[in-house]
């Protein structure tokens, strides 16, 4: 078996992986390898043809392909090749990688540091357990997005979309513009799962019916989907008498994303149940030395801009690890998700350079305040759909080394004040 000895191996050439590779290279580490199982780089961005990307990172409103191309071009100009059509089959705790592709067959990579950038995948019908028959015509929203936007197939004529995550709402508009009928977007919560902007510009603009506090309780059809039964849901219970049938030939599921961590598990990387991704420190290093993680494999982000920034941080620290310039303290500060915080990364702080926390809240809070240690930041509103970032300087953290703990919480403020 061929063995490639490299300084840094990056698994995945989506937005996190590309940013990590660029930054590693900028740090002066040239011997890197990027592996990508798809036949093109860019990951999800290629099929996300809508705009709204890059508003923070580039201060421009870009489409997914435009955002990706900026990184693809830069990688090419820096002479960083991407091993496309290459599937990583194993990752071991000693960081060695087994991969396979059509040119080399099975080969081994022996890296000094690894960046995990495998992204996430969609939840499927199986994870919802919807009863009924098993006809064709049931797709995850992201798969339908690839079929419509990259391959050029419209997978049906009359659609029902279950779940109002951003991809679901964006697909509702996309399908309608491509001439299909969208009979309903069905959401179990009393509000949409994605951004308000998408509710307005994808659903309201096109008068697509939105059924809040509803879900699909049965699927009909012999060979092809013929319809679904929807019902109102109140406090987790189906409301009797509210059931009705909607005929459709295609059901899209936009019911959440799961970080893709099979390789991380094989390498004994400890995972966090709240994020679904690796437990990390502020350098993006996992619990296995020399293995770093960034992007949606770590936690499902709201904006690609944040994924890029996380990728850069992981790439930079992987390079520093190789150079031997990552300095850890003998003790650490555990970061604890307190009141109304669903998840927070990093999970621990191990160095003296400060840290940037990224957190998601459980409930929408108006007139909100995030409290970390002695630091308070105020916001008009914080929603579970956003990843909030808080910077902690070395001095913000200084007094927490003794207890080894810092807690972050989000609460409603009692008095009106100036917002940040």
């Amino acid at each position, binding site marked *: 078996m061929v063995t490639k000895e490299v300084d840094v191996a990056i698994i995945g050439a989506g937005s996190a992986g590309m940013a990590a590779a660029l930054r590693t290279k900028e740090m002066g580490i040239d011997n890197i390898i990027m592996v990508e199982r798809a036949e093109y780089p860019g990951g999800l961005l290629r099929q996300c*043809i809508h*705009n709204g990307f890059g508003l923070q990172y580039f201060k421009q409103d870009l489409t997914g392909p435009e955002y990706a191309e900026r990184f693809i071009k830069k990688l*090419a100009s820096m002479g960083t*090749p991407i091993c496309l059509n290459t599937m990583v089959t194993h990752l071991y705790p000693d960081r060695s990688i087994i991969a396979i592709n059509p040119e080399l067959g099975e080969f081994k990579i022996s890296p000094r540091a690894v960046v995990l950038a495998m992204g996430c995948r969609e939840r499927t019908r199986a994870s919802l357990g919807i009863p009924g028959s098993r006809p064709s015509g049931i797709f995850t929203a992201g798969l339908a997005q690839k079929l419509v*936007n990259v391959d050029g197939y419209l997978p049906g004529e009359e659609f029902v979309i279950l779940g109002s995550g951003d991809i679901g709402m964006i697909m509702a508009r996309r399908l309608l513009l491509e001439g299909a009928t969208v009979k309903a977007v069905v959401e179990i919560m009393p509000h949409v799962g994605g*951004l*308000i*902007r998408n509710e307005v510009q994808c659903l309201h603009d096109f008068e697509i019916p939105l059924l809040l506090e509803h879900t699909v309780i049965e699927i009909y059809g012999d060979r092809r989907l013929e319809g679904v039964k929807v019902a109102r849901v109140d406090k987790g219970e189906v409301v009797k008498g509210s059931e009705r049938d909607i005929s459709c030939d295609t059901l899209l599921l936009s019911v959440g994303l799961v970080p893709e961590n099979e390789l991380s598990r094989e390498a004994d990387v400890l995972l966090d149940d709240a994020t679904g991704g690796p437990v990390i420190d502020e350098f993006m290093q996992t619990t296995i030395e020399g293995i770093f993680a960034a992007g949606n494999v770590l936690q499902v982000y709201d904006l690609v801009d944040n994924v890029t920034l996380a990728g850069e941080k992981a790439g930079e620290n992987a390079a520093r690890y190789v150079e031997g310039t990552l300095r850890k303290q003998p003790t650490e500060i555990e970061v604890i998700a307190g009141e109304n915080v669903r998840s927070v990364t990093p999970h621990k702080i191990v160095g003296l350079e400060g840290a940037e926390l990224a957190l998601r809240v459980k409930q929408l809070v*108006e007139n909100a305040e995030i409290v970390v240690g002695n630091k308070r930041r105020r916001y008009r509103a914080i929603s579970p759909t956003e990843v909030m970032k808080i910077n902690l300087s070395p001095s913000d953290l200084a007094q927490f080394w003794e207890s080894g703990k810092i807690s972050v919480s989000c609460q409603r403020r009692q008095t009106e004040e100036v917002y940040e």
Partner: protein
Amino acid sequence: MNREIICIMCPLGCRMVIGVEEAAILHVKGNKCKEGLEYAQQETSFPGRVLTTTIKTTIPEVPLLPVRSEKPIPKDQLENCMEVIARHMVTKPIIKAGDIVISRILGLDAHIISCATIGEGVSHEG
């Protein structure tokens, strides 16, 4: 005339009622901050959206080219633009991101431009 709109400036999504007469706003109710006023102003004077879609190509490996309107186009023209785009086919062997694919679609002040470089212009092989 009163219209109800939802503000998209922050996660609160304030439901606002705006009184409009001949594209001039008379009053706005329901907004919790001044950003709501600005949004109401913008949605009343020019309710435009950037149109993003795809155009068929003659390149077998890349059957679709992602495209966008260079700037927002009036909301009520989106579906008409889609009909024009559906009839269009890109026949050039190389297209670069930013190239004009359809100039001044429907006579509007906006070109349809390419969002990607396809054809011989780009190589990902390493």
